[in-house]
């Protein structure tokens, strides 16, 4: 990257940082809410989900970027969907083969990555206009932002909801787990307050 001109490096750096905070898909753009809420009862499934999304995002961005000059405008969305669905199927098979427990825990939320708006939004906004390398950087940055947001949310819910972190007991024995946080209600409340916190931080900074 450094061999390119300064402007070029700047673009890559900006893209890389955008996904983590400024344009964080979950915390700032509110994309991909369904897995964010559904798989964050514990950190391990949340992390696995994040990795699946990174995989699908990178593959589909590469594919879309490769065929960006051949795309017919009215068939664009169909092509994106087809690409994403293919890579989600592959991710699902990989998960079933190498992480069977996680595959069972995530259940239908793995195929639901197909309709995760993050991936189609990145294909449309970035990969269909930019060369491969920038598309990959963009995919990695957005994927990392998504994974981090999921893990933060899952961390809060797992520690308070079960007293464990990554399946290891971290809270003292006397701590009574807030079971509600492991239930659907916990997902909504934690994400609601987390978004509130993000809004508060953003406001203080500006």
């Amino acid at each position, binding site marked *: 990257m450094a061999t390119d001109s300064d402007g070029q490096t700047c673009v890559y750096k900006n893209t890389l940082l955008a996904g983590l905070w400024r344009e964080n898909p979950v915390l700032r753009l509110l994309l991909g809410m*369904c897995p964010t809420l559904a798989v964050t009862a514990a950190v391990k499934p949340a992390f696995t989900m994040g990795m699946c999304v990174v995989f699908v995002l990178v593959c589909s961005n590469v594919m879309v970027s490769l065929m960006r000059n051949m795309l017919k405008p009215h068939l664009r969305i169909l092509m994106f*969907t*087809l690409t994403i669905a*293919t890579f989600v199927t592959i991710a699902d098979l990989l998960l079933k083969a190498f992480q069977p427990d996680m595959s069972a825990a995530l259940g239908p939320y793995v195929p639901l990555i197909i309709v995760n708006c993050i991936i*189609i939004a990145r294909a449309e906004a970035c990969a269909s206009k930019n060369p491969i390398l920038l598309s990959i950087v963009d995919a990695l940055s957005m994927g990392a932002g998504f994974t981090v947001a999921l893990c933060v949310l899952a961390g809060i819910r797992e520690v308070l909801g079960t007293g464990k972190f990554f399946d290891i007991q971290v809270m003292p024995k006397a701590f009574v787990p807030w079971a509600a946080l492991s239930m*659907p209600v916990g997902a909504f409340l934690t994400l609601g307050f987390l978004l509130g916190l993000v809004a508060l931080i953003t406001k203080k900074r500006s």
Partner: protein
Amino acid sequence: MDTVYLLITGFLSVVLINNLVLTKFLGICPYLGVSGRIDMAFGMGLAVTFVMTLSGTLTWLIDHMVLIPLGLEVTRYVCFILVIASAVQLVEMYLRKFFPPLYDSFGIFLPLITTNCAILGLCLFLNLWGIDSLLEAVVLSVGGGIGFTMAICIMAGIRENLRMVDVPECLQGAPITLITAGILSLAFMGFAGII
């Protein structure tokens, strides 16, 4: 009689106990986005119910008539999403041509629905729950749509009133909606165990 009982319990279960929005977290994006006005929410709900019934039935048929007999379960996700996308397109064209008033009332929501995870989610859950009769698949699809409509309308009603409330500045918008949804899902948990 047994079948009727089974259908009624299945319907209640998918509307109240396993509500797609409040317990399975499906279709949260439109839930946060459009649920500001109750008439818009109802239109969206109708459109979703319509497409969900159609695509739930179609994907169930394709799954049981084509994919399972041929052993092609691995291509299930690709097939499902293509069926849903084409169903949405067809419905949109059909409505625009033959029922313009209906198209005006909820046609604008149709393109949004392709990426609504509630639809694909329901198709996948029909498969996961091992539904093995067409009638049951249809009833559950309608139920899923009605459950979605109910959740989104309740939310729109609450949000209409929320406008007159002094919400802390940092919680305005999506955060307070999520917190409200959390309390709603707590209320819906009370339905568990009625069947």
